[in-house]
């Protein structure tokens, strides 16, 4: 009889010691974001035997059946999906905000109004050389501003493409990791600490992957995962032990497209989708900027051609170029400005042609209204994205909080467990001591 008590006490000691170790492990990983709280599952050991109609039980203590990890498939999925949506909007916002900065900080609108004001000023005294020179200089500043805006926009595009290229490598590393984890999970034993650790790294890799690409994960009984990228078409990224590589193509106009394992693919969410949308938006802004520059060049040069300059000869073009990148002032001096109508005498102070040009610049379809409209459209778009990001970040933060609450470690609970297990350990030692005393009592019989 005391023999059984020894083994029962020993099994209890083992269980409480393992429990203490597990609690320490939980506490040690309290700040580890990828860690899922572990618990110990135990079962009673009872031996039952029958002889004839007489049955008899023999208690065997407790058995450790395995280390269990908190199940969190649903909250994990919510966290992943909301993170994908947030990353997509954030990346798009970041890209377009850079375009907005490019156009606003270069003060394109301001330069255009300065040019218009210089022309207006010239109306009072069209033959005044300083006033004419100031028109040419403000035109030079305007052309320079267009060039700068163009360059800043190109830089912003380059940065986004660079980011996307770097993150393609991240995605490929993650999918390779997931394929490896799948292979290892097949071999891992249920209820083992190593399996729990593998599942933790699987969930962490899926979360990181979801930041870059929206994914659907379906899990098998043994914990292996089939990862499909959300988008058109839906392409498997990780299937069993193999992963399909993601690759990126940059088009000449700066937009990007993706392939997974050689199949063309348009992502639906995640930072990659956001970057593709941002680049598309930037190309639209670039087109608008070029159209604006071209509008200005055509308007001014047409007006020049219709008038005559200070010397009475037909006006020559003021601007060269076709877009924001190559617009330049080719007029040498202010004397070349054709303020007077065609055929006017040298030194004419008739401003009919200048007035017509000013009318064209200020018109609804003119470059000033065009610049204002472009800026308004872009900043409204950025403002809309900002609002959306705010909403999505609340959703994502809630999902993330939900996940932490579900899988994270609660220190108060662990502290209580520590006390409880310590007491259990002491009680089990006491059982062994009692068994020893009983044994001694039996031995002392004489």
């Amino acid at each position, binding site marked *: 009889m005391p023999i059984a008590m020894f083994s029962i006490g020993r099994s209890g000691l083992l269980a409480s010691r393992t429990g203490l170790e597990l609690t320490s492990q939980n506490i040690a990983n309290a700040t580890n974001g990828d860690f899922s709280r572990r618990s110990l599952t135990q079962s009673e050991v009872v031996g039952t035997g029958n002889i004839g109609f007489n049955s008899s039980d023999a208690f065997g203590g407790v058995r450790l059946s395995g280390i269990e990890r908190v199940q969190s498939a649903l909250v994990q999925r919510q966290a992943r999906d909301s993170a994908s949506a947030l990353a997509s909007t954030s990346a798009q916002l970041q890209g377009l905000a850079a375009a907005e900065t490019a156009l606003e900080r270069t003060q394109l609108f301001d330069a255009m109004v300065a040019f*218009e004001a210089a022309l207006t000023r010239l109306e009072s*005294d069209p033959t005044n050389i300083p006033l004419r020179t100031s028109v040419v200089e403000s035109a030079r500043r305007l052309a320079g501003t267009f060039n700068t805006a163009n360059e800043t926009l190109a830089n912003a595009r380059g940065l986004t493409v660079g980011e996307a290229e770097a993150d393609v490598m991240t995605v490929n590393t993650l999918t390779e990791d997931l394929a490896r984890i799948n292979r290892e999970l097949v071999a891992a034993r249920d209820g083992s600490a190593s399996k729990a650790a593998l599942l933790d790294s699987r969930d962490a890799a899926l979360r990181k992957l979801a930041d870059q690409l929206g994914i659907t994960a379906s899990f098998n009984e043994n914990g292996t995962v089939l990862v499909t990228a959300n988008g058109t078409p839906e392409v498997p990224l990780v299937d069993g032990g193999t992963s399909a590589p993601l690759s990126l193509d940059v088009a000449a106009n700066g937009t990007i497209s993706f392939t997974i394992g050689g199949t063309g693919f348009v992502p639906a969410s995640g930072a990659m989708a956001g970057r593709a949308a941002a680049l598309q938006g930037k190309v639209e802004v670039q087109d608008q900027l070029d159209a604006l520059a071209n509008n200005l060049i055509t308007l001014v040069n047409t007006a020049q051609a219709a008038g005559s300059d200070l010397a009475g000869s037909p006006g020559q073009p003021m601007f060269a170029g076709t877009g924001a990148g190559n617009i330049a002032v080719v007029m040498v001096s202010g004397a070349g400005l054709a303020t007077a109508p065609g055929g006017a005498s040298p030194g004419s*102070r008739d401003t009919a042609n200048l007035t017509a040009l000013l009318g064209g610049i200020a018109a609804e379809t003119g470059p000033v209204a065009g610049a204002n409209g472009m*800026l*308004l459209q872009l*900043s409204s778009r950025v*403002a809309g994205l900002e609002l959306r990001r705010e909403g999505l970040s609340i959703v994502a933060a809630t999902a993330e909080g939900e996940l932490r609450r579900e899988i*994270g470690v609660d*220190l108060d*609970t662990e502290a209580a467990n520590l006390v409880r297990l310590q007491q259990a350990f002491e009680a089990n030692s006491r059982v062994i001591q009692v068994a020893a005393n009983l044994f001694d009592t039996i031995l002392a019989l004489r």
Partner: protein
Amino acid sequence: MGSLSTSFGSFFERSISQMNGLRSQIDRAQTQIATGSRIERGSQDPAAAAALRVLDRRARLTEAASANAAQLGQELGLADRELQGVSALLQRARELAVAAGNSPLGPTGRAAIAAELAQLEQELFARANATTPDGEPLFAGDVAGPAFTRDASGAVIYAGSATVPAIPLAPGTVIERGLPGSQIFEFEQGGVPSSAFAVLGTLASALASGTGDPAAAARDAIAGLDSALDTVGRAQTILGTRAVWVDMIQTEQQGRAVDLAERRSEIGDTQISEAIIRLQQAMTALEASQSAFARISSLSLFRALS
């Protein structure tokens, strides 16, 4: 573990994001106060930013139009002063013509008057070719060269244009920058085109030569001088009216500039008192959440157990 358990990580995450939010509110209010402008980037308020751009443009163009109006006012003033001189000069010529026509004068007297008249004609020519401080002719219309020239015979001919360029000073308001010399110095005398120069020149040469009846020639010239005075007087009235008009426009432009500035400030400037209150509010909230964080994070069973 029920839904009541709050994991260690989730509490810290939440606290960090809340405090970050408050910190960025403080940052925004501080920037608004420091820069004095409510909108740093267009996307913070796209409609207001577009309105600001339009207002800035209008302010800028109003500024240019004010400069134009000031210049026009100055030119009209200069022209008026020249015409006052012309008017006085013609008065003097008329007095001389009256004197030459009525009182019996000897050849020396006539020669003296003729010399003075020739001098007056020279001065009239100079005044008719007066320029702005920039060297632009005042009475040549839209032509760059001098308004009046002398041909080989010494006759004065108008070399300017018949029209004068107009300057737009405000939407829908266009004011001509003066009068062409032809409308100031040229007129019809008895159905025949004549000019102040011709009347003066003819009289001076008639008196100087002494042939025929100089007194009668002087009496004839009076009618011509009266017409010249009338024409100049009319021109002065027109210029005076325009000068008053320009003054009115300038006053209006100043008013508009103030309006634009007020509107701009309404839309784009930081409301300092509001921003300071918001700053104070966010700072109080941050301090409170910091001290709450410090207290709650020290609530641990571990602390109680030790």
